[in-house]
């Protein structure tokens, strides 16, 4: 059950210093740094604690509310921090791959793809078109699976339980494909520096086409009919959390969060990688069809139609795979990954936005520094701005529409 801290209980005295000999240390978790003495008498501090079914991970949100209306919101992150960037300094480049999987664990293919492309760019490795096409297929399948989770859990937060299970049923089929190819269902370690870990098994193309046929003709239309155009769903979301395009750009929102507000910026079109420039697809933007542009509904709408665009890309990629000559997927994988001294920043379009890797290499087998620009981290930064003036029930709609995964925010 979410805990609540009243103004009296969450007073400064409760936390206190953890170690008296450590000057300047942060206060213990559980206190609020808002000045409680300055609170109005009918304002309350409400804690949506780290354990909450609707915060999509271990996120603590502190709300200062006046009755039902939120006056200020402050998210506290860090509950899932696992020192990813420190680990990278102590393992070699292939060893960093499993760690990158575990950041955004809902869309793991995208993370490894980003890191592999970053190191390849720095090292000057170019993979064959066959490997590029495989990478695109895996990335787009992962995009469908990730958006299925995002849209499904979002509708569950709003109260409709059934679309979540229908979408997850299709996601299971995608995960079955992944398991067939590389052996794992969620954390694949699939994209390697210079190639991929396993070649596609025989029959993969046909199995994927079957999956897409069912998705295109049954699951997607049903999703639209059952929930997306449902009047109650629309009314819940279409006037909530409106993020104007200028605000979105100033807070550096990327991905569906930005496209929901209007600007059609997609790295697969603006700075293509892995052969994306050769595919024919549209960039999905929010249309404001039921309310002001940039509402929670629009962001959710962008994720929904992006699933169909991914399906379009997949059909093209599968056609190419059938006709292309198959090369060895380990052909360009170096025996020892040792990029030359230098630094590079490379970004890819992950399902949650622009995922960037800033890599500093000093010529050794271990990276010198890996810094990740996480799209969910920047998405969370706009939360406090949009939450002002909302009702408490809408705060949950807002968090879900930003589609955050705490593993990526905290790394």
């Amino acid at each position, binding site marked *: 059950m979410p805990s609540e801290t009243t103004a009296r209980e969450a007073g400064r005295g409760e936390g206190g210093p953890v170690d008296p000999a450590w000057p300047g240390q942060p206060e213990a978790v559980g206190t609020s740094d808002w000045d409680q003495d300055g609170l109005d008498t009918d304002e309350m501090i409400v804690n949506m604690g780290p354990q909450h079914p609707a915060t999509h991970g271990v996120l603590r949100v502190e709300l200062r509310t006046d009755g039902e209306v939120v006056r200020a919101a402050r998210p506290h992150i860090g509950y899932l921090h696992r020192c990813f960037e420190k680990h990278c300094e102590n393992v070699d480049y*292939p060893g960093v791959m499993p760690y990158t999987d575990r950041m955004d664990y809902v869309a793991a293919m995208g993370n490894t793809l980003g890191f592999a492309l970053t190191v390849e760019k720095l090292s000057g490795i170019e993979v064959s078109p066959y490997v590029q096409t495989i990478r695109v297929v895996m990335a787009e399948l992962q995009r469908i699976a990730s958006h299925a989770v995002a849209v499904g859990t979002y509708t569950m937060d709003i109260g409709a339980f059934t679309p979540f299970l229908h979408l997850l049923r299709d996601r299971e089929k995608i995960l079955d494909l992944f398991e*067939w190819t590389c052996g794992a269902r969620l954390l694949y370690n699939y994209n390697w520096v210079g190639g991929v870990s396993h070649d596609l*098994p025989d029959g993969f193309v046909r199995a994927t086409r079957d999956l897409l046929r069912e998705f295109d003709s049954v699951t997607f239309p049903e999703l639209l009919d059952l929930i997306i155009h449902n*009047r109650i769903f629309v009314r819940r979301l279409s006037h909530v959390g409106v993020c104007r395009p200028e605000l979105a750009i100033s807070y550096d929102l990327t991905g569906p969060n930005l496209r929901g507000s209007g600007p059609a910026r997609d790295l697969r079109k603006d700075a293509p990688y892995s052969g994306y420039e050769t595919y024919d697809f549209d960039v999905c933007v929010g249309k404001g069809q039921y309310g002001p542009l940039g509402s929670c509904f629009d962001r959710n709408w962008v994720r929904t139609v992006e699933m169909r665009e991914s399906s379009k890309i997949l059909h093209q990629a599968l056609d190419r795979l059938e006709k292309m000559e198959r090369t060895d997927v380990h052909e360009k994988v170096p025996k020892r990954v040792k990029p030359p001294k230098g630094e590079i920043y490379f970004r890819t379009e992950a399902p949650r936005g622009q995922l960037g890797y800033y890599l500093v290499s000093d010529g050794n087998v271990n990276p010198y520094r890996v810094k990740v620009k996480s799209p969910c981290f920047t998405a969370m930064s706009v939360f406090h701005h949009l939450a002002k003036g909302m009702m408490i029930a809408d705060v949950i709609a807002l968090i879900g529409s930003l589609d955050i995964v705490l593993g990526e925010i905290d790394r």
Partner: protein
Amino acid sequence: MRQWLADVWEGFFTVLVGMRITWRHLFTSPVTLQYPSVKWPLPPRSRMRLFMKYEDCIGCGQCVRACPVNCISLKAEKRPADAPPIWAANGQPIKLHVAVFDIDMSLCCYCNLCTYPCPTDCIYMTPEYEFATSDITQHLYRFAKKDAVFLTEDPKKKAAAPGAAAPPPAPQTPPAKPAGA
């Protein structure tokens, strides 16, 4: 007024559309597989429990270096000078005596990076996933055997010789129990 009527009608209608979909789903077959009574086969590339065939290990330590979480511990000593020469199944001579080879599966992240550098392919991931225990120390698998039977003839020479027997079979899925916890 017209907007109000349109709203009411749309609200009513979308509800009916949604109900039709759930009604249809009432009659589609469920996708649940009831796990303990029904176990479906995993694909052959599945990355579950690690297995190491001790008789083929040459003690090179490549897997230890490749592992990102340091879950493999290896202690190898030089074999005594008077010991008979032994070979791994793929023909590589074994020059070291592997005294300790422990894999701590509670640390393993199932990334499969250890299997690629192995020169003799003696370490690989198997589709065996039902090895949960209530005691975490049981997840430390000790693969070093005291009574291992090594190949005392170079299998490459044996295969090339006329009238040679068929080469030894490929590694099979190992038995369910760990090699001594």
